[in-house]
């Protein structure tokens, strides 16, 4: 049932090249996080999401220090090695200091165009609206230059439907997982999620629809198994999910930037694009990278634990991600105060030895099992 998803994730370049050829759309590499794919599709582009990879870091060290996160380093490695020839341009958001400067590095060492959606985090609403309007306009114009096509109300509406449908189907998958822990392997679930980074939305949507139908009749494992909620920026490395599967632990929900924080977003409202993108950026799930005290992560996560029935929360920390690292101690403390067991694992996307993380996950699962 999950084989088509695994096939995509194990042959990303070939998959993208095939679809690029079929679609005749320029591939736009989308950096973390929250750049609306809808804009790229509406402008005639083919967005693929770059959340890092596990390439050994050889060339990127020439431009990024070891204290930069492995997401930034591995994405740069990909381009420096010439492994992303199909990517014609890169789309950034102003998510963090590293990504802001990474865009500057790209502008100086590569010829490929870059665009940025600068995320205004002021609480001065009128200022935010005015500035975001200009940001969106500039992003749209730059995208149109790259693709050579205009965004029209029709293409925008079509894109909003398409990607809105993707997230709705993904939400359905999350719901099945939440309500039927163990119905699918953790590794299969995140492979299905990751597949969406690389496929055209209509192709991916069809795969998800088939999957959802198939899952309806799937049995759920018996017996008490620990139920976890994971929180972090990026759900990779995928290899670790096999460890959860091996241990008989079920991830019932998550709070990943490239997981639920994105999946939870409703259809992009395109009638007023500035308002639509504001809503898209700030709601409904809070993110450590986007200041928004109206949507506090503490009650949000407590509620999520309650609703998912998770026995504990594992913080999934990609090393050197400052926004995530700053939030974690207070969040862990609060969850503990409320009686939720917590643990954290620090990870690098390029890691190849999973023994230590296995020990840590195993110990946490034992605690959860009581």
């Amino acid at each position, binding site marked *: 049932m999950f084989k088509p998803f695994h096939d995509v994730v194990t042959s990303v370049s070939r998959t993208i090249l095939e679809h690029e050829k079929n679609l005749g759309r320029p591939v736009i590499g989308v950096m973390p996080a929250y750049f609306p794919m809808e804009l790229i599709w509406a402008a005639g582009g083919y967005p693929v999401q770059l959340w890092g990879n596990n390439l050994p870091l050889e060339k990127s060290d*020439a*431009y*990024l*220090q070891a*204290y*930069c996160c492995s997401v930034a380093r591995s994405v740069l490695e990909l381009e420096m090695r010439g492994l992303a020839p199909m990517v014609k341009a890169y789309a950034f958001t*102003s998510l*963090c*200091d*590293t990504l*802001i*400067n*990474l*865009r*500057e*590095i790209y*502008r*100086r*060492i590569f010829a490929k165009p870059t665009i*940025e959606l*600068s995320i*205004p*985090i*002021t*609480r*001065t609403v*009128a*200022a*935010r609206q*005015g*500035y975001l309007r*200009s*940001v969106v306009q500039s992003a749209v114009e730059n995208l149109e230059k790259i693709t050579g096509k205009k965004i029209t109300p029709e293409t925008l509406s079509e894109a909003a439907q398409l990607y809105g449908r993707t997230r709705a189907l993904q939400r359905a998958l999350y719901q099945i997982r939440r309500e039927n822990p163990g119905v699918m392997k953790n590794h299969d679930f995140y492979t299905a999620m990751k597949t969406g980074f690389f496929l055209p939305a209509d192709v991916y949507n069809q795969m998800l629809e088939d999957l959802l139908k198939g899952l309806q009749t799937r049995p759920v494992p018996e017996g008490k198994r620990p139920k976890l909620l994971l929180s972090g920026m990026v759900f990779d490395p995928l290899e670790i999910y096999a460890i959860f599967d091996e241990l008989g632990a079920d991830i019932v929900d998550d709070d990943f930037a490239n997981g639920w924080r994105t999946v939870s977003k409703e259809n992009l409202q395109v009638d007023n694009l500035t308002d639509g993108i504001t809503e898209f950026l700030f709601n409904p799930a809070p993110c*450590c990278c986007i*200041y928004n*005290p109206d949507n506090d992560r503490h009650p949000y996560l407590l509620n999520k634990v309650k609703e998912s029935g998770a026995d504990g929360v594992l913080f999934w*920390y990609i*090393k*050197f*991600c*400052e*926004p995530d*690292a*700053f*939030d*974690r*101690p*207070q969040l*862990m*403390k609060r969850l503990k105060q409320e009686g939720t067991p917590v643990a954290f694992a*620090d990870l690098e996307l390029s890691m190849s030895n999973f023994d230590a993380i296995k020990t840590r996950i195993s110990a946490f699962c034992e605690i959860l099992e009581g």
Partner: protein
Amino acid sequence: MTEFAAFKKMKELLTNYYFEAKTTQEKPIAWITSGAPVEFLYAMDIIPVYPENYAAMCAANHQSIELMEAAEAEGFSQDICAYARTDFGADIRQGGPAAGLPPPHFLLCSTNICKTVIKWYEVIARKYDVPLFIVDTPFLHDGLTPELIDYTVSQLKDLENFLADFTGKPFDRERFIEVLALSREAADYWLKMLNLAKNIPSPFNSLDTFIHLGPIVTLRGTRECVDYYKLLYEEVAERVANKLASVPGEKYRVLWDNLPVWFKMRDLEKFFEKHKTTLVVTTYANSWGGYGSYSLDSIDEIYKSVAISYLSPYINTGFEERIKYLAQLIDEFSLTGFIMHSNRSCKPYSVGMYRLQEELSKRTGKPGVIIEADQNDPRAYSDAQVETRLEAFIESMTGIN
């Protein structure tokens, strides 16, 4: 350090400043980032307290490790900014030279130095349950635009409303303009003083400026600050007139990019002196000279110029601007090379530095070196590694005589 008579005055000023902040019963306390528009606070008689400044003091006093360890024991990762960790630790232990900072009534933060400060101040806001006002100043990838200026002006006007609500009294615009004038005057003296290093030999070195920037950070907008920098300027000008060198026999003149290594100031000074090398100019100390361009002509112009000043710190600008600026400094200060501090605690300053070094060397023909270190964490510093790199760099420079 170069001996300045003004140093005593500065110590007195900063002692008084911390004493007032620690003991006041009447004035509200705001914790504020080094790049935030402090003039609005002084206009409303609010005492600004600078966690960054305090963290630097802790490191210069060799107290940062124990404080960072206290923060790390509460779960704060060694990956996060060492200033933040030092301050979290100082707050937990009530440690450091002033036995901790006075608790804040609210927080004011600007993103022009990094986005990390948002996270840092969110932690404080939650701990103390106090309001946080953020002046968001987006990164200038392609320079200033009318939209960026409008965005910032609009937030500054909202800051006035916030302060009026907080203090329960109307925002005092008249006083604000007076404060801006004082801020401008102090920044002017500061910049004029820094520019005296264009003289050969340089009358001071950049390690001196790191010490003497305390008042321009904390007291910018006060009469005392102006008086102090006037005094310092006059003293340095006299050294120039008397051709007094900071480093006797000055042979090499170099730029320092990024924050200082606060816990290594003395050692580095001795090292550079031994090698007849003067650190002549820094992008860091120069940043506070940028507040000398406020227009006081009309209300609209005032807000616009304040917005521009706070949008434009060096590290909030794109790499093309940075390279142009660095090349200009190399030329104007007759430099023989440049040092870049790859600072584990400051990503906006450091990420991309390897590329900047390549391009700057190519553009100016001057050698440059990158040292791997940290502004506040001695555990991320290797004497042997840094000195070996600096020695090789010094050998690669052509001296001025």
